[in-house]
């Protein structure tokens, strides 16, 4: 069973994604702040990381930078899931090594799950 790490400070969203992704057959681990998320990425070695950018303790950009600097985590694909939509934020995240950048309000839950499946190679398309 593939493992997804969800780093997001809104517990409501975490619960929503846990239920949605478990229904799709994925195992999901969650972190409510950047520091905990980084530690979980290093210890649990997930197959994919869903990362918010506005996070307490360590923001998403810093988490992404450290993930890509660490040889143990740099190959893990990272999908940014955020409400920040400035071009400068999108460019910065992609330059730091994010695989995909999704602005939350522009995607339905189904579309986000499709992106996740495609990144993990589980897409039926």
């Amino acid at each position, binding site marked *: 069973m593939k493992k997804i790490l969800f780093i997001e400070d809104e517990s409501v969203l975490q619960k*929503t994604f846990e*239920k949605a992704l478990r*229904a799709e057959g994925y195992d999901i681990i969650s972190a409510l702040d950047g520091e905990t998320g980084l530690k979980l990425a290093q210890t649990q070695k997930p197959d994919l990381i869903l990362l918010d950018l506005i996070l307490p303790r360590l923001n998403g950009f810093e988490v992404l930078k450290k993930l890509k600097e660490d040889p143990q985590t740099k190959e893990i694909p990272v999908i940014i899931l955020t409400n920040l939509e400035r071009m400068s934020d999108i460019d910065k995240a992609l330059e730091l090594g994010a695989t995909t950048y999704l602005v*939350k*309000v522009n995607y339905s839950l189904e579309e986000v799950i499709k992106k996740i499946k495609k990144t993990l190679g589980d897409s039926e398309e």
Partner: protein
Amino acid sequence: MNKETILQRLNIRQQCKKYPLPIWQCPQFIFVVMGVVIIISTLFTYSISFKYIDDPLLIALIVLLISWILLIMAYVVTHGVEKLADAARLKMEFLTIMTHQLRAPFANLKWIIDLLVSGKIGTISNDQKEYLDILAENSKRLEELINKIITASKIEAGQFPLDKKPFSLKELVQRVVTSARAYAEASNVKITLNIQENLPKAFGDQARIREVIENFLDNAIKYSKGKGEVEISVFKKDKSLYLEVKDSGVGIPKEDQKYIFQKFFRAKSAFKHQTQGSGLGLFIAKSIILAHKGKIGFKSQEGKGSTFWFTIPIAEQQQ
């Protein structure tokens, strides 16, 4: 202060990137320019004084006085510019945070509704689905209103970047009309299109121009109470493309017409006919067209209808 910090501080371009302003309004750039002005002025004062004054002490005093006056002026100017630049940066950061904080609940609502409707956490009845659809629709309406408020705030803060490219205005209008057909039919309004053959491409931000056309068309349908007709015409006019949306609706009272593009303004006809709206659509539309160096206007007669129009540049002339 270590070597890296000093080098970073000397990198003017890097320092100026943190401000949402052109480089000539950046305090660090102004500081460098003032420095160059002081050096040139000091050398100039020295050479002129040397030509006309024999006493070296007097020359030194004059040069010192001029340099001192220029240094004080440079400090005042740079300090003032820095305060303005910081205010612009804080406004930008505030807008970014507010955009994020206002939009966050909508993403949550949307996805929770998606999850419930999907049946992945239990089946729902038709009645429950109906109420969830109402919830989703109202959440979308509130989201659109928040988006308009955010857009209006960004326009006022000068944070309104456009992605300008050549595009087909004819195809854009056709797409907008297709997506408005159901609304028009439900409102008993007929839409006709008059688009010039071989229309040249427009130059602008297609998504933003779409917002303007949607706003005009939405208003035209909304204020055509009962059976009505909306006519959209697009043609080349001088060096621009001209688009107008004409309706046979309620029109705008004469005393309200001068306020029609103001933020949050809604004409008396809007309240009289109980139509929904934020009063931001036309304010945003005008800002978009002016940012494209186009023109926007309207003519209206109460009881007879209104014609809203705009012009935007043609693509060949921009490249």
